[in-house]
């Protein structure tokens, strides 16, 4: 179930009640973007979405693992607040300050729905550099 897009890719791992997501990228930020892609692909097929809406999120976090959770939950909160679903993500960092943007569209009546993601958890949470200078960010998302 791996999905690739340029230097980013994501996949899933099994968890009894919920879903494990893995985002990979050449940098930590790209891995976080991939993790966001994995999370939102549970709710809607990314290829079926337009990019009619843009949203900015930001937060402060020193701990990079907690930052992954904060990033995903900030996006989920922004999506639910707007009744929207996102397909593309960009994240940058200056010290402990994280700033990101996401693009997508409001839910349409005819949208094929996946499964609602309630939030990102701290379970199986890890952010690390694997072999080949690839960053990997993973956690379980509650559905």
């Amino acid at each position: 179930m791996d999905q690739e897009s340029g230097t980013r890719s994501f996949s899933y791992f099994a968890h009894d009640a919920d879903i494990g997501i893995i985002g990979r990228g050449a940098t930590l930020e790209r891995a976080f973007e991939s993790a966001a892609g994995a999370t939102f692909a549970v709710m809607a097929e990314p290829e079926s979405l337009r990019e009619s809406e843009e949203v900015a999120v930001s937060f402060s976090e020193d701990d990079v693992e907690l930052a992954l959770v904060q990033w995903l939950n900030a996006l989920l909160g922004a999506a639910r607040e707007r009744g929207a679903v996102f397909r593309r993500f960009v994240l940058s960092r200056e010290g402990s300050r994280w700033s990101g943007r996401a693009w997508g569209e409001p839910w349409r009546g005819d949208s094929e729905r996946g499964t609602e993601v309630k939030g990102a958890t701290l379970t199986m949470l890890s952010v690390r550099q694997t072999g080949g200078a690839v960053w990997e960010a993973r956690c379980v998302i509650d559905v």
Partner: protein
Amino acid sequence: MDLERLEQTGPWAWRVKREPGAARAEAVLYGDAGLLRSMDEKVLEQITNVARLPGLVGPALAMPDAHWGYGFPIGGVAAFDPEQGGIISAGGVGFDISCGIRCLRTNLASEQIAHVAPKLADSLYRNIPAGVGVEGDLQLSIAELDAVLAGGARWAVQRGYGEEAELEYVEERGRVAGARPENVSPLAKKRQRGEMGTLGSGNHYLEVQVVERIHDAAAAEAYGLRTGQIVVSIHCGSRGLGHQIGTEFLVSLAKAAGRLGIVLPDRELACAPVRSPEGEQYIGAMNAAINCALANRQILAHLTRRTFAHFFPDARLETLFDVSHNTCKPERHEVGRKSRLLWVHRKGATRAFAPGHPDIPERYRDAGQPVIIGGSMGTGSYVLAGVASSEAQAWSSASHGAGRAMSRHQALKQWQGRQLVDSLRERGILIRTRSMRGVAEEAPGAYKDVDRVAEATEGAGLARRVAFLRPLVCVKG
């Protein structure tokens, strides 16, 4: 799960063997060998982690439907004494705070439903907002939401969603005390503005069911259940508001635990002492979310009644009971012949008070509190009754569902939503959904055998079976 790590202490009870030098309380799992073997090893790891938390009274407990969750296992029960530094854990409640089941009994028989079932299913699907990104007709201001969070199902009744009398049959009589809407973030409230009266997705559902079997005639009579009768079960929780509270406090309590000197065996067990500013902050927000969930199910019950009235003008849909299974509540329990106020976490577990408990509606007091085990859309569900032995076994707690036997990831590989919908239709079960992916993830085969879970629940002395409900129509998110 490797049973070598367990010691069987009774026909349905198992204790986790103590690791050398382990500084933890006991951890106990309920079920038969087959159910326990089917559980992931992570259940064992998670329940022993819970047994390391401060202020735990008695063992950390896993119900027969337990499966790998986050922090606590789903099906985890643990009681903490604030007088002994006992904690409250956001991971021990879950994101879907006060997720639960409202069960409505009707005056309709299955043969009355048969000829209109497809149209009734279509109508319920149209009228019950379900699925990711689907909002309800009700759009509330922030001030109105604050009233929901303070008032719970009582707020909904005051707005015309149902009758005052039915609140007797809702846990906490429709409104939990101690809600602090001001502890709930503006974003959590914004997320909920369009989500009152919505079902959500995942394992949430609205089912029209028929009472297929009665196991306990006296309790069934008290609950107003008879064979062939139509009932409706609504499974959902506190929606976006609860999810946001869960996400915010998970991180803030994880950080607070470090500041407060609590060593967490797993960061997901994010917690703070009940009697600490951080703990009190979470408790106020959690209680607000409980009221949100109670109001949500009250509205959905009303929408269900309205839909049935279109087909059956004389139909009566009365609340049998509304019980949550993701909560932490202060309750008095006997510990060594002394009554103590404990904070009981039930994450994917149902409160199950024994006959005579003052919090049980008078009509059911001799029978015990109704307990609902929600099964998969292809098998069925159980109504059970609380029993006296559950107090000593599990702080009056019981199972809440069939429990997953396989991950969503595996289920997606094994089943296709459309094929499942077709095969269930051939078996007389009508599915209405916006998400074929969701149907595949929730495939009946992805769940444990609900009959065995209910049997183990009874065998372990947690609750006794009253009736089995077979699904006829299922609206999935």
